[in-house]
């Protein structure tokens, strides 16, 4: 599945410093890696490890202080704000922890959003594309529902559909299961594994080490540096785990479970 001939993302000694008061704070202290087409990479690290900063770099929301970031053959570092906006629009699909759907707006309209900023799509093409991806994520029956009429899992599916609609080079998920209960989290993982099997490149940023077992590669970040980068040869099936989950789990159990995991 992984296409070693095509590099989607290449980071060369990327550094990012922030000036806080009089001090220089390094959030990234020289990060280099390549991600090939079709990989499902989890990027892990505790808070303060620089994973949010790295995600902002990968998502072209920010530019490196030094080093080079090449996305699908294009160097991002010297790009203007508008060029990066265009790049995000064409090459990247974001999935956020808190879904970030527009309120009072139907699923189809939410999914259409990235295409609204792409003049090459007509209104009809937008709608068709949105309906197609919504069906792919299993929401063919929720096309005209608004966020307040849907469950967390359904909202995240809409968000994933929105990330897919522009047929991006890479899907960037930021704690995409963070707001969901265990069962729904695994449902999302099933979906991500399905997308992976279809050849999508996925980068999943999380602080939950368990998720690493379901991805094809795991990058561990600490203090702005990569401390571990392993290819996972034994990818667990999220579908199997989901099927084996006890059904009668209560919300309270889930909370204690996730708290103990956090510790």
């Amino acid at each position, binding site marked *: 599945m992984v296409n070693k001939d095509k590099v989607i993302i290449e980071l060369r000694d990327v550094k990012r410093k922030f000036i806080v008061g009089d001090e220089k704070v390094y959030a990234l202290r020289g990060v280099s890696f390549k991600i090939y087409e079709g990989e499902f990479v989890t990027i892990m690290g505790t808070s303060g490890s620089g994973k949010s900063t790295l995600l902002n770099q990968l998502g072209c929301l920010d530019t490196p202080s030094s080093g080079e970031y090449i996305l699908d053959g294009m160097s991002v570092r010297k790009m203007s704000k508008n060029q990066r906006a*265009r790049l995000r629009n064409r090459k990247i699909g*974001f999935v956020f922890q808190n879904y970030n759907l527009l309120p009072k*707006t139907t699923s189809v309209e939410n999914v259409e959003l990235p295409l609204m*900023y*792409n003049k090459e799509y007509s209104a009809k093409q937008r709608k068709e594309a949105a309906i197609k991806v919504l069906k792919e994520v299993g929401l063919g029956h929720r096309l005209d529902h608004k966020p307040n009429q849907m469950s967390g899992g359904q909202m995240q599916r809409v968000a994933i559909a929105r990330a897919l609609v*522009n047929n991006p080079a890479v899907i960037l998920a930021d704690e995409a299961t963070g707001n969901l209960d265990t069962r729904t989290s695994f449902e999302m993982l099933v979906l991500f594994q399905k997308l992976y099997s279809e050849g999508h490149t996925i980068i999943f940023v999380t602080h939950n080490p368990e998720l690493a077992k379901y991805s094809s590669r795991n990058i561990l970040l600490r203090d702005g540096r990569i401390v571990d980068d392993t290819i996972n040869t034994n990818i667990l099936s999220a579908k199997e785990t989901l099927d084996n989950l006890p059904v009668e789990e209560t919300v309270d159990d889930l909370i204690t479970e996730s708290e103990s995991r956090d510790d």
Partner: protein
Amino acid sequence: MSILNLFKIAIKALSNNKFRTFLSMLGIIIGVAAVIVMMAIGQGSKESVRKDISKMGTNLLSVRPGAEKMGGVRLDPSEMQTLKIADYEAILNNKKYITYVSPEVTSSGQVIYGAKNTSTTIYGESPEYLDIKKWEIASGSCFTDEDVRKGAKVCVVGKTIVDELFEEDTDPIDKVIRFKSIPFRIVGVLEEKGYNNWGMDQDNVIITPYTTVMKRLLAQTFFQGINASAISEELSDKAIEELTEILRESHSLKDSDEDDFTIRSQQEMMETMSSTMDTITIILVVAAGFSLLVAGIGIMNIMLVSVTERTREIGLRMSVGARGFDISNQFLIESVIISLSGGLIGILTGWLGTLLCNHLGFPASIPMWSIVVSFVVCTVIGVGFGYFPARKAANLDPIEAIRYE
């Protein structure tokens, strides 16, 4: 993003907050309506003043003694004794562009009939005065040239005099009234003219031969003025030239001397009045305009709130590829929609207000250009006061915006 989509988004965002949108529109509605009504009242009163003046005759010319200045000293024109019978005769003999001429001597005082009296002004004129003023006789007739020659104690009176001095149903013709103890026999009653725009009762007059006033009342040999009418309004200027020439010759003025009289045309007067009305209108409109400014600030305020409220939405839009330009356009269009639709409703309200004014008796008519101006002003307000919030939205950092709580 296309303009059409931006409009759709803006309208959706505004309709999500209907009451708030309405409130920010209300400022514009009130402001525009006020400006429109003020302009309409200004325009309406100007028109009514013009109508009144032209009723008095737009070809009217009046000669008054005295130049603007005499040897550096301005004298009271009524004390100057420069306009005499000779001047009047010179005009009568040489006029080409002038149709009617009437000398004028006036005096104010009490007029008495029986036990009743009232304060009025007596005008010594020639019979042509009524032609100059386009004044009709309601009953009886005017005094004649013969009366003028003899200095007869006859007069025509205005409606107010009749109302004040006589019981209802009394025919005032041939009754004798006294002005400063001199008896005048009424030969005619004038058509009612009503009040003029300066609030003067035009019907509170007694008109009598100028010779009578000069000889019997005031014992003076000069006129306070001469009224004349040009053949037509267009020929007013020619008539003024002609009058000047005649009077200069009759006063034997040298070329280097200044005129010792002034001639004013009704047209000139009309222009003065118009410009006064314009000034008043401008003051009113500026006052109303301030409410538009306040309304604009209201829009800016609500747009700033809206930007803060929708920070996450802005962050999301940016992360899926919206440029700063797209974001600022989105908010600009919202504020333009508020101000333009507010403007439209304001124009409608202003129009209704104008109808109400007319109904209540204030003359008001909306000048077409004021509608155009309102539209332009509303667009300027929408863009102007929407610009700062829109810039603020466009300059947000998507990283912070998307995680904004």
